[in-house]
């Protein structure tokens, strides 16, 4: 089956610095992909390459088998994009905003857009600047949905919203996903928002892809071990992803399947299955490898 989103050694250089480098993954259709990373990790760059707002410096990105080419109608039609801060024309009324969508998109679903505004209780006559932040985010999401593209890309969709609006917005995205079977990519640095939503995970730090895979597979191939502090990394099964030392014990996240675990277990070690948030944090804290020429810093999660 054609992957919904495929990246093949894709890289983007801004002047002399690489915003994204050597990024390879493949996401099946119908997935809800969580893209996690600190600010400056390359999330927005990867989304812009997917949408067709940027052209890659090397490698390629394909959406449903077709290579994304920057600023071509064919690429733009395949991806709906909700940019960070959900930009809208502040002086427009909601009705104007919907008409904007209709006149800029041949596959525009006006009935869907009207119905959503109705259900959300957003008056069509109101100016965008008079709406609350949550309502503005909903109008922006509606524009993206009514474009009727098979891939929906959301860049930090809830970053500027209050907790209640976040909850409502994410619930809405989930309902749409379940209803339409869209493939969705959500970039966020708020890990807890993604846990309930996504079944696919991409972790980026410093312009590099650290982890890519289905959430179930990743949870099955990672373990959290509690071991005596003096235990060396080399003694542990699989690969050590991150390690936290306390007085007497160390908590280690290892990438190791059940077979490796069965072979490498010691009596005084305690193994536990890893949680979603723990897994993501482990990779985000991983000392960055091969950082040369890449951009961004492994900043602490906000």
């Amino acid at each position, binding site marked *: 089956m054609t992957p919904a989103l495929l990246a093949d050694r894709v890289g983007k250089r801004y002047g002399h610095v690489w915003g994204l480098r050597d990024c390879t993954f493949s996401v099946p259709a119908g997935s809800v992909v969580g893209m996690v990373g600190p600010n400056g990790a390359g999330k927005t760059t990867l989304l812009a390459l997917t*949408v*067709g*707002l940027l*052209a890659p410096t090397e490698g390629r990105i394909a959406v449903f088998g077709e290579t994304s080419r*920057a*600023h*071509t*109608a064919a690429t*733009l*039609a395949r*991806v709906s*994009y909700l*940019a*960070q*801060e959900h*930009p*809208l*024309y*502040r002086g*427009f009324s909601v009705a*104007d905003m919907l*008409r*904007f*969508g209709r*006149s*800029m*998109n*041949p*596959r525009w679903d006006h009935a869907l857009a009207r119905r959503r505004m109705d259900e959300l209780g957003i008056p069509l006559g109101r100016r965008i600047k008079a709406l609350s932040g949550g309502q503005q985010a909903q109008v*922006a999401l509606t*524009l993206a949905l009514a*474009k009727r593209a098979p891939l929906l890309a959301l860049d930090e969709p809830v970053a500027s919203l209050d907790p209640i609006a976040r909850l409502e917005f994410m619930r809405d995205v989930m309902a749409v996903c379940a209803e339409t079977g869209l493939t969705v990519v959500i970039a966020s640095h708020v890990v807890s928002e993604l846990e309930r939503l996504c079944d696919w995970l991409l972790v980026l730090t410093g312009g590099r892809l650290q982890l890519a895979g289905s959430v179930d597979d990743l949870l099955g191939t990672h373990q959290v071990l509690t071991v005596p502090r003096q235990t060396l990394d080399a003694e542990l099964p699989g690969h050590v992803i991150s390690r936290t030392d306390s007085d007497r014990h160390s908590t280690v996240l290892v990438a190791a399947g059940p077979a490796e675990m069965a072979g490498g277990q010691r009596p005084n070690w305690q193994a536990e299955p890893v949680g979603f948030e723990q897994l993501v944090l482990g990779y985000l804290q991983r000392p960055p490898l091969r950082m040369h020429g890449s951009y961004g810093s492994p900043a602490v999660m906000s």
Partner: protein
Amino acid sequence: MIWVTWRQHRVQALICFAVLCAVAIYAIGAGIWMRHAFSADGIPLCLARSGGAGCPAAITSFADRFNQGVAVISDVPLLIVPGLLGIVVGATLLGQELERGTWRLAWSQTVPRNRWLVTKLGLVTGGLLAFGVAVTMIMTWYHQPLDQVTARLRPVPGTAEGLTFTASLLCAFGLAVLAGLLLRNTIGAMVTAYVAWEIPTTVVTLLGGPIRFPPPVTVRLPCHAGCPGASVSSVPPVTGHLGDYVLGVARSGGQLVVTYQPASRFWLVQLIGGGIYLSTAVTALGVALWLLHRRTT
């Protein structure tokens, strides 16, 4: 796209329409009054060379009276108006999208960025062109009686006849579009573009005044009944040909040395001034399109 362009620029379109109405009200009112005076003073008879001895005085008095009226509307406001309007329209086109981040919205719809820009530039330029031509036509109609007796060749750009007004408007627009793209800020783009627009405006003004290009014609006329000196009335000009724009009269060895731009050079002067403005506009818009296209890859 057509609707989107209209929706984003409709306030500016209304401002242009209001300016056009103001110009029309003034020009039509004053134009009708001028035409009355034109007939009442017997100028048509004078021009048909069937007038009496009072003709030079009548023409002089008519021209002096209305040249002031023309100066009020055409010299000052119509010199600045195209610059201001062009800049307001141009600076928002890219500058505001980039400043407010709405470019991410505009360029991620199904219309590719290049087509988006070309369509918007085409429609807005068309609108400005229509506005400029309308103002020029109204002002030309208004000037018409005066143009028959006095120089139509007032120093460019202090005139709304010919190409200058429209070309100046488009020049300011083009510079503001480019400034908006480079500065990503509406107000900054307006200020920068206004300063930049002053450069071609100054060049065109200098060509009409101190530099005098194309070089004026000089004739030496014999003095009959004593040379009147440098304060010769320019209406009708000492060259004897109505419409010649006299730049200077000097006395030299019993002769009058008259420097003037012949009336026949009207379109040449307009083409030079308009050409400077239009080539600036085309260059600025071309650079903007190229820069935006280059960022694609």
